[in-house]
């Protein structure tokens, strides 16, 4: 990532999520909100199904950049809005696609815009990573 060019896609990947992945994230993160593993609780609070943790989606999104950055310590700021839920079907799971594109470059940092889609829908809003250039 030596010469960052605005508009350039610097990283891309697809990740398949299963219910197992949600349980694994619950355990690793300590977020045991039952809407992420219990269909009955998700239905009772009016959700279309069991949802992936927003923080799991946020983590997967930024992880896409790691190889291109070399050192994730170059990240100085990372923010997202959770705009659409990712429903994880018990059998089919859910597929996330992440694309990282350079949005702006100034003297010391670059802004990388992450586009995360699930079933043709963008699920994160204003997902932006500010990275040091060196």
């Amino acid at each position, binding site marked *: 990532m030596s010469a960052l060019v605005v508009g350039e896609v610097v990283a891309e990947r697809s*990740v398949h999520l299963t219910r197992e*992945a949600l349980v*694994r*994230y619950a*355990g*690793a*993160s*300590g*977020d045991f*909100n*039952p*809407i992420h593993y219990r269909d009955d*609780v998700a239905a*009772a*609070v009016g959700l279309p199904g069991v949802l992936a943790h*927003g*923080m*799991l989606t*946020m*983590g*997967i999104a*930024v*992880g896409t950049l*790691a*190889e291109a950055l*070399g*050192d*994730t*310590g170059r*990240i*100085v*700021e*990372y*923010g*997202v*809005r*959770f705009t659409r839920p990712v429903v994880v079907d018990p059998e089919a799971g859910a597929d996330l696609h992440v694309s990282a594109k350079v949005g702006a470059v100034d003297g010391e940092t670059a802004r990388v815009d992450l586009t995360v889609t699930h079933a043709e829908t963008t699920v994160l809003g204003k997902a932006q990573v500010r990275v040091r250039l060196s």
Partner: protein
Amino acid sequence: MNPELVGRVFPPTAPYLVGREKVREFARAVFADAPQHSDPEAARALGYDDVVAPPTFAMVVQDLTLQQLLGEPGSGIELSRLVHAEQRFRYSRPIVAGDELVATLTVTGIRSLGGNAMITSDAEIMDATGAHVVTAISVLLAGEAGA
């Protein structure tokens, strides 16, 4: 939701010691397969003392502060009706295994929004020397119980 919580600074959390296996476990859970998250040699090659936590690992420490908020008497927040609306991290440096971290939560805003409360908060995460590591900023939407 008690609007008097705005401006409240909670007591610092008990020190959280970042373990190497915890970083590996978290990295696996977020599909963070870059070697510096699991291999101490790869992390040392980048100048770190031990494995480097993925960027969103700060949430694990921030979560301790959100437990303080949820545990506040009369907060009226029910976990299953809590929606994470926005999240932001501002880093001075990445979290590394061996760090002992303390987080201090400040509630910066509460707004009523059609039966929901929108709660914004900052968690300042510092290391054992008192140096800033990362600030975690959350916007949560809390449905009122029974609403």
